[in-house]
């Protein structure tokens, strides 16, 4: 079973990288960019076939390693089509 995890900074946490992207877009004359926030996307392929178990396992991975839950949120999307 495949899963996609989006990890983003919690709202209100300063995002220096997003700010750098925003400035760079301005320098390239892309107008109308109000703000940019960036994060990361992680794709994981699991041998687990039970969706509930997969989700529990992915949640544990996020809590312990993938996300810094002090300043980041995570969102798990399971691809159940397979």
């Amino acid at each position, binding site marked *: 079973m495949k899963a996609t995890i989006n990890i983003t900074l*919690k709202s209100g*946490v*300063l995002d220096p990288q997003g700010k750098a992207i925003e*400035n760079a877009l301005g320098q390239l004359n892309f107008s109308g960019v109000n703000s940019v926030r960036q994060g990361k996307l992680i794709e994981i392929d699991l041998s687990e076939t039970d969706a509930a178990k997969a989700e529990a396992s992915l949640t544990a991975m996020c809590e312990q390693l993938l996300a*810094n839950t*002090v*300043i980041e949120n995570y969102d798990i999307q399971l691809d159940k089509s397979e």
Partner: protein
Amino acid sequence: MSTRLNNLVDVTEDIAREHGLTDDEYKMIVGHLGRTPNMTELGVFSVMWSEHCSYKSSRKWLKKLPTEGPQVIQGPGENAGVIDIGDGDTAIFKMESHNHPSFIEPYQGAATGVGGIMRDVFTMGARPVANLNALRFGEPSHPKTRHLVAGVVSGIGGYGNCIGVPTVGGEVNFDASYNGNILVNAMCVGTARADKIFYAAATGIGSPVVYVGAKTGRDGIHGATMASAEFDDASQEKRPTVQVGDPFTEKLLLEACQELMASDAIIGIQDMGAAGLTSSSVEMADKGGVGIFIDLDKVPCRETAMSGYEMLLSESQERMLMVLKPGREAEAEKIFHRWGLDFAVIGELTDGHRMVVHHQGEEIADMPLTHLADGAPEYDRPHVATPKRPEFDASNVTHPAIADSLKSLMGNSEIASRRWIWEQYDSMVMGDTLVGPGGDAALVRVHGTQKALAMSTDVTPRYCFADPIEGGKQAVAEAYRNISATGATPLAITNCLNFGNPERPEIMGQFVGCLDGMGQACLALDFPVVSGNVSLYNETNGTGILPTPAIGGVGVIADYNNAIGSGFTQADAHVFVIGASHGALGCSLYQRHVLQDEAIVAPPAVDLQAERAHGEFVRATIAAGAVSAAHDVSDGGLLVALSEMAMRHGIGVSSQQQGDSAYWFGEDQGRYIVQVSADQLAGFTTAAQAAGVNVNEIGKTGGDELTIDATLTISIAELTRINQDWFPDLMSGKTA
């Protein structure tokens, strides 16, 4: 909580308590205002009266420290201390804690600690030239330790390396008392011309108050209150207050400030550190004896719908507050905009000595400044002296073979090489680092001159716990020794006083004792305190940390070509010990880690007269060219110090000295080991006699082994391997 952060909520005693104010303090606030404070005013009072901002438990004792001397240009009370290093040059430095934020989010906590202390230094007109860090972690085997070490170290490196200021030194200890409360003390040293120093005091009614730097978000609201509260298991929930640092913005801020400082447009300048806009505006206006008006609608914000309460208490990083000469705004604005930074006139100085804040057209706060700053409560907390400890009892002790003890100490958490840490730091950027991490004191050239600054951070917490007075003396004396061992003259110190809960009399007794000892040493060694920081309530679930008054010493040498290193540099040179060796094993690493004896006994006594005499002798003989390497004897005693000198450049040493374990591992104070080449021998011994200093030849350099006749032979390669392996093994999980 956000629903409460505005003035629509009526303040009650319960809300005051949630802000960390006692019932008596709340009554005082009501008395000063002559009415109930609103939410914004309560927030401002609570941070200004927090331990972190007001020093309410410590002020009485800090006043007793010696802070004066001919070398002192600015003592405690400003953003950082300033000392005269000759030729119109000054060194500006301070050390500050970022303990609680670093425990919650080690990378960002440590990074913003480094950023904050650099702003304290460059806000005074200095260019930062060196960073040091005094770190204390829990037991190596504790499950959180590796995570915290890795995060803190990369946070320090990340910020310092990005902004381009070298990290040149520091210290690390591991102890179970820091398991739930690590210490991250960051020190920054900068240089400036004596006629280009900037202070916080704001004067001139009508002068514009200007906000520069990054935008304000909801970062770290109540960080100052958090830093003044004990941790309990619920403190995990306080996490969203963590600030995120941006070293690239700080670099822009540094350069923009330096550019504006080259003109004469600035009246006063202060960085927005703990308690942000609140403490910076209160301190500037209070020091200048004026009032201040602030219109929060002018404050550049990163987030929408921030309340006045949130804007005043936000601890967003990389921001400064300035008071400019009237009419100079446009010139300053041009500079800050060119560096891509926000610039906003947010208010002006007023008469009346009050702080008045408007938001969305309404007055949301009106408070007397006197009561916010110097008028904060001052407590004379009850304190009980730490009981006198018995001397170490050497009877019934079975000593292992000296060679085994040495190997055990060289691979011990307290002595093992810190290379794993400092390899992650850029210690050479700026091109002026002469001696980086790993020596006694770091040496950094004063750019464009022959002068160099020597700097070191020191304290031995286990001594301070056993005997706060002797421990306090020892911390200052060790900084003095480390600087002297390079040939530089020690000039002044900063400190970062980390203790447990001051409301417990035995903890307050530790604080009082350590400051007593520090004060005695500062006086005896002409080594005054010019800046500092106090961090109390370092406890977890009622257990305090070891008392840890970290000392950051700074000295100067007129010509860096005369400075020497801590490692042996040549074969067939004579090796002398300066100072008497009585075999003091009490509180030694040998007692704790080799004998595994946890008994709390008396630490080695510090003879301040001898410290001074030995320091002066070492500096004089270095200046005369008689001594070509010097290392102070501290943790682990003589044999560890000898090993460190040998490992530095891979040059061995052999000794005919006969001694027992107490002789080789005792931690008697006031000692150095020095290398004297054969052609300097006569001059050195004559100088020692003339100075009346106890020197004792213990061996000769050469070969690639450490040899003590009839006792041990160990190759330098093996010592180095033992010493270097511990940290990488810990961090890769091999030893945990």
